[in-house]
């Protein structure tokens, strides 16, 4: 037997105009188990709340029904009233007779009748409500940042400056990401290294940052506040604790590897640091290029190392790190343009992709900052093709957002460093950003030729060996352009890292069809994900420029902080649980849960639910054929009882 109190709100005339509120209260009083039923002008007002609190005490109520506005409005208000009166807050039921009754009808008969039905349903359900307790958990105050490009670096520094301990995990042997490859940044044309390397150095020096280069996350367990993350340290074959960065080894090494840093334009040693300002500035050995690993002898580096830091026996190792929140900032790759045969990338030496050109401009790059072709000539005419693989149904449908601007930057740098004629082949010029339109105007005035038409084909010139012919329509004149050039620059689509789907699986993120991570809400929660405690920043979410990436990094740091500043975290109480006696081990719950909360307990032979991961959607309960799963606060019984009540009147 329950003792239910029903409180009907007039909401001034908002409800009372089209629902006979006193009649509703009288009706409530006739329902079984209802021991008190009242109506009042404003139930959410202080006197209204006090009335409920008093009645809870006076009538020893164990269930409260407030018949008023939408639960999305005042459920929390009335829950607090219950809690303050010593009643479990989940023993409250709200009947929405304002938004879903009085405001959507003019007919007081209809309004009253519908309200009665809704109230009857609520009383039915209220009898079956159970007290629920929220679980409170301790929060680990540390944060992990995955990916140490500009986004990861910025986020790590922000968090570390607040005093939080940060693990910064980077797959490569140095931090810096793509930004460290650039020479200048648009639209201000400031030097990329000048603004980035001080930050890289800060990371290295910061006492709160544990830098983990040549590392990859291999397993993520736990949940918000308490993640256990396994990180694999790939063998570097150099003991960085002993190495004093004299780099004598790199001078002597006879091995030759392809320089990833220089986009394969040049070779590097087998023991190497990617570039002079790399952080950490200590070498690693590329196993695939090392003479010793290939042929079984050499070990020259070992001989010249006074610190005895070379260790050919080094193995991959794993460590587990405990953190309360994670920021994923894994960045992007450029699309491989080789399959687009019409552009001849990889076939004609004069065709470059954008990152290769970034390296050509860079004074630390393969040409020392001189723009020369692979055969050493200076180009006389250069075509820049926009939208290669972007805005393209056959490849990537999205606009890569930065190509227009960096293509303009290229044009400027070409003009600055060569005497070449520069042509831009574009579809639309997108210059929406602070100072971007101005930058566009500046480049126009530098006498760059703009051809409004997408580059269609690159072919070898029949007449002049080594030259290329680019073909496109100038859609403004409708003329077919055949233009001899020496260099073609492709601005390819930005795509998520090749392993983004693996990262998504590890952290239980969802991705779009290309593998960009999905944010929780495109406008209101752009940095959170559907996985509580995991945040995203930078291009791994969608293509964006450096200013936006940095802004996101600050935001993600703040988001992570909202979790790790607290000692304790209250978890959702309306979670699901398994009644082991009814579980038939069909594993449907395990299959469907978007959060990986249910798991199969091999020993007991039944499914169980990790309530810390559960968000209370109830999907598992509906796919459970033997009704073994109890979706708290929305149990089968409660829903059926409510339905029964609704259909009775």
């Amino acid at each position: 037997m329950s003792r239910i109190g029903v409180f009907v709100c007039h909401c001034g005339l908002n409800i009372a105009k089209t629902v006979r509120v006193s009649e509703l209260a009288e009706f409530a009083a006739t329902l079984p188990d209802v021991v008190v039923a009242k109506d009042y002008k404003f139930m959410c007002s202080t006197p209204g709340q006090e009335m409920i609190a008093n009645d809870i005490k006076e009538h020893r109520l164990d269930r409260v029904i407030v018949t008023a506005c939408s639960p999305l409005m005042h459920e929390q208000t009335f829950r607090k009233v219950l809690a303050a009166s010593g009643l479990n807050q989940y023993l409250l039921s709200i009947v929405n007779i304002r938004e879903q009754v009085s405001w959507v009808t003019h007919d007081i008969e209809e309004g009253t009748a519908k309200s009665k039905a809704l109230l009857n349903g609520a009383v039915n359900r209220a009898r079956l409500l159970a007290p629920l307790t929220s679980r409170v958990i301790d929060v680990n105050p540390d944060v992990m940042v995955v990916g140490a490009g500009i986004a990861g670096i910025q986020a790590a520094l922000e968090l570390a400056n607040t005093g939080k301990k940060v693990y910064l995990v980077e797959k490569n042997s140095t931090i810096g990401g793509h930004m460290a490859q650039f020479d200048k940044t648009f639209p201000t044309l400031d030097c990329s290294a000048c603004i980035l390397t001080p930050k890289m150095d800060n990371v290295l020096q910061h006492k709160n940052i544990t830098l983990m280069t040549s590392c990859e996350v291999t397993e993520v367990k736990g949940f918000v506040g308490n993640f256990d993350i396994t990180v694999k340290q790939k063998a570097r074959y150099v003991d960085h604790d002993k190495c004093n960065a004299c780099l004598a080894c790199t001078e002597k090494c006879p091995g030759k590897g392809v320089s990833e840093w220089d986009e394969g334009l040049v070779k590097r040693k087998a023991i190497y640091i990617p570039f002079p300002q790399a952080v950490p500035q200590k070498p690693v050995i590329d196993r695939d290029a090392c003479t010793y690993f290939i042929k079984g002898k050499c070990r020259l580096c070992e001989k010249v190392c006074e610190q005895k830091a070379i260790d050919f026996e080094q193995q991959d190792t794993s460590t587990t790190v405990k953190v309360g929140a994670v920021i994923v900032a894994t960045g992007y790759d450029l699309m491989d343009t080789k399959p687009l045969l019409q552009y001849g990338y990889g076939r004609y030496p004069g065709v470059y992709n954008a990152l290769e050109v970034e390296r050509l401009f860079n004074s630390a790059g393969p040409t020392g900052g001189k723009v020369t072709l692979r055969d050493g000539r200076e180009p006389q005419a250069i075509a820049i093709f926009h939208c290669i693989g972007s805005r393209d149904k056959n490849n990537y449908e999205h606009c890569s957002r930065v190509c227009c601007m960096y293509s303009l930057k290229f044009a400027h740098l070409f003009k600055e460093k060569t005497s070449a004629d520069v042509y831009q082949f574009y579809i639309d010029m997108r210059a929406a950003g602070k100072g971007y339109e101005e930058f566009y105007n500046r480049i126009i005035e530098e006498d760059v030729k703009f051809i409004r038409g997408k580059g269609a084909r690159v072919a070898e010139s029949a007449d002049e060996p080594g030259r290329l012919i680019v073909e496109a329509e100038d859609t403004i004149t409708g003329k077919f352009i055949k233009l001899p050039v020496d260099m073609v620059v492709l601005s390819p689509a930005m795509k998520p890292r090749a392993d983004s789907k693996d990262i998504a699986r590890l952290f239980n993120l969802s991705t779009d069809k290309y593998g960009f991570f999905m944010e929780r809400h495109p406008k209101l929660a752009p940095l959170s994900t559907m996985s509580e405690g995991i945040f995203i920043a930078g291009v791994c979410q969608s293509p964006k420029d450096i200013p936006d990436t940095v802004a996101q990094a600050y935001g993600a740091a703040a988001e992570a902080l909202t979790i790790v500043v607290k000692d304790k975290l209250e978890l959702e109480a309306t979670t699901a649980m398994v009644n082991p006696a009814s579980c038939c081990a069909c594993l449907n719950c395990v299959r469907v849960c978007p959060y990986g909360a249910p798991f199969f307990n091999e020993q007991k032979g039944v499914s169980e639910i990790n309530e810390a991961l559960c968000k209370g959607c109830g999907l598992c309960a509906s796919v459970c054929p033997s009704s073994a799963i109890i979706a708290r606060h929305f149990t089968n019984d409660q829903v059926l009882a409510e339905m029964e009540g609704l259909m009775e009147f």
Partner: protein
Amino acid sequence: MSFEPKILGIACNWCTYTGADLAGTTRLQYPQNLRVVRVMCSSRINPSFIFRAFQLGADGVLVGGCHPGDCHYNTGNLYARRRLAVTKKILEFSGLEPGRFRVEWISASEGNKFAEVVTEFTEQIKNLGPQTKFKIEQ
């Protein structure tokens, strides 16, 4: 007296229920035959809820969820789409009038759509007349 059907609505908390609130906030008018049960996600809906609703005498059942792709729980409504589609086929093959069960994706911003759907569905159920096949006579 004209036939006033009883229609059960089951709406997800995040989209359709909120959309229904919006219809109220903007004072759109629609017939009062619908009584809504709020669940957290359309994927919470057990097929047996639907069968039971008709047994309880519902003349129509309207399920509302977030648009596919916008589910608050990522993928809940994508499962719901399949499961409710099968529910519908079962109802139809058993001989229930196909028009009595309907699933609509109504977002939190689609108060208009909520009102339109309810109006149209109520009209449709009125035309179908009382549901007698599943209903358990007391």
